[in-house]
């Protein structure tokens, strides 16, 4: 199994509060991704990183920010959580990005915003 862990695995929070999800890898892969999974929408890309301090937006980046200060950690922040951000969030890592092969996913972080 790829060395990728997400924390927290479950979180319940209230509307308007900040939330940070952490993705940690031990594989030293260059690429890291954040996706959210919702019924009827599948997996949607939020943000991704192609190196330390190098990030870019995905399909649904509004309301989210990311940071990558170290190769092994990729943080997803919801500055002010809304109920529409209730979802399961998956982090993924890839050695060479989307075109060189598969991505390895974490087990997901379930976020509920009340």
């Amino acid at each position, binding site marked *: 199994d790829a060395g990728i862990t997400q924390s927290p695995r479950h979180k319940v929070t209230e509307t308007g509060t900040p939330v940070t999800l952490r993705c940690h890898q031990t594989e030293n892969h260059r690429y890291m*991704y954040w996706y959210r999974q919702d019924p009827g929408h599948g*997996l*949607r*890309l939020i943000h991704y990183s*192609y190196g330390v301090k190098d990030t870019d937006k995905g399909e649904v980046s509004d309301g989210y920010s990311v940071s990558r200060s170290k190769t092994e950690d990729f943080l997803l922040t919801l500055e002010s959580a809304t109920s529409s951000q209730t979802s399961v969030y998956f982090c*993924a890592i890839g050695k060479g*990005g989307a075109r060189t*092969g*598969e991505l390895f996913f974490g*087990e997901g972080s379930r976020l509920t915003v009340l």
Partner: protein
Amino acid sequence: DQQVKQNSPSLSVQEGRISILNCDYTNSMFDYFLWYKKYPAEGPTFLISISSIKDKNEDGRFTVFLNKSAKHLSLHIVPSQPGDSAVYFCAASGLGDTDKLIFGTGTRLQVFP
């Protein structure tokens, strides 16, 4: 706007028969396609991929077919097994935006005895 679509949310197949999962895409710049499988409470795992220079790729019981003119790909599982019951996502990446992997909405496959 969904660039990768899986129009069948669910599929039920008897064990031993063929499962065919379909995927359509709208972005003509996509040229690399993958299928992922996802079990409940787990992250997706890679299954098989295909480049646009091919029209077929096979790996054991799994075969992916690509029809570029129709912007359509399909995953065939033969023979289907109960352990194949999962949600299947197709995904695509494209020229000029090669770092991004865009996923479809998923199809839930159930293989019954």
